[in-house]
């Protein structure tokens, strides 16, 4: 009787671990899918840190400036 109960508890524990592993794999796959849908090619552009820094670089190199002004926060995707 006692041995049977111990085996049952052990079997339930193993089942719980397998279920947890399956759930974790599913959750991680879903998160990866969300991350993969990121469109962040704009980050490849060698942006200058500030407008005045860009003005100085433009003057020094005799190159024009590409200025993009917007509302919000481009880095967090909220613009």
């Amino acid at each position: 009787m006692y041995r049977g109960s111990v085996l049952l508890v052990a079997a339930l524990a193993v089942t719980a671990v397998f279920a947890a592993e399956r759930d974790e794999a599913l959750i991680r796959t879903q998160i990866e899918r969300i991350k993969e849908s990121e469109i962040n090619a704009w980050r490849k552009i060698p942006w200058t840190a500030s407008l005045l820094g860009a003005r100085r670089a433009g003057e020094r190199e005799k190159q024009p400036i590409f200025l993009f002004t917007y509302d919000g926060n481009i880095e967090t995707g909220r613009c």
Partner: protein
Amino acid sequence: MRVSSLSDPRVIDLVSKYFVPVWVSRDDYQRDPRDKDQKAELMRLDQERARRKMKGGNVCVFIIAPNGDVLATQPVQLAYKPENLLPLLQEIIEEQKLGPRSEEAIRASADKPADAKPKNEGGRFIHIWTRLDTGGNQGLSNDRVELTAAQWKAFLPPVEAKPGTSWDIPEEIAHKLYQYGYPPGPQWMTKDCKVMKGTLKATLVAASDKEARIQLGGEMELKFPLGKPTEGRVMARFVGVARVDRKKQTLASLALVSERADYVWYWQGKPQPRKMRIAWELEP
């Protein structure tokens, strides 16, 4: 712009090679905060654009000559399409007889990514992504929130916990994570978001001497302003998992994702429902 023309490889190529690129948030979100001189320079450019009756607005592309003159502008309504922005860039390159910038000059002027470290000793970052599944592609939102050591330790199982034991993650911690669960878009003031309801429950699933595995489940209702009188709402349900390193008594991983997330905003009093997805992950 960021998910359309600024992520178009042809635009990236021309902007990177022939121009000194810079972005300026009019909401003062620059990593390098604008000082008085930067504000004055932006105002000068806006005034010159207006005086010369060039098209523009808050969201706008300016092409500025090395001497500071405004050569051209293109408002977002046009510039978000690469087929409008590309000819403008090509025209400037030809008119000004531009050669490409040197690799050295590009390296010298390019911003270095900030190496953000936790503000609190023992603090850990949680990364949050949201996306809309229906409607136009607005890309992902991308936020980080720091949990203090005391806050992330709330995910560790109580000392006497056995598999099956559940505990509530304090509301203050759940709300801190949920506050960023609103979709990407122009609403950027996270502090204006109000978590109307936010619960997060942890359950110990399995434990050994080395590791504890935790299952997470929660719900939230979030309200955020989109401009008077409209507001947006997100209602979502989550599932997640966490692993605890029992020897180090630390969180080894944590992942939480929406099982269902509904976003609704109102246009002329009519609800505009959309599906979205939200994910949280502990940074290594």
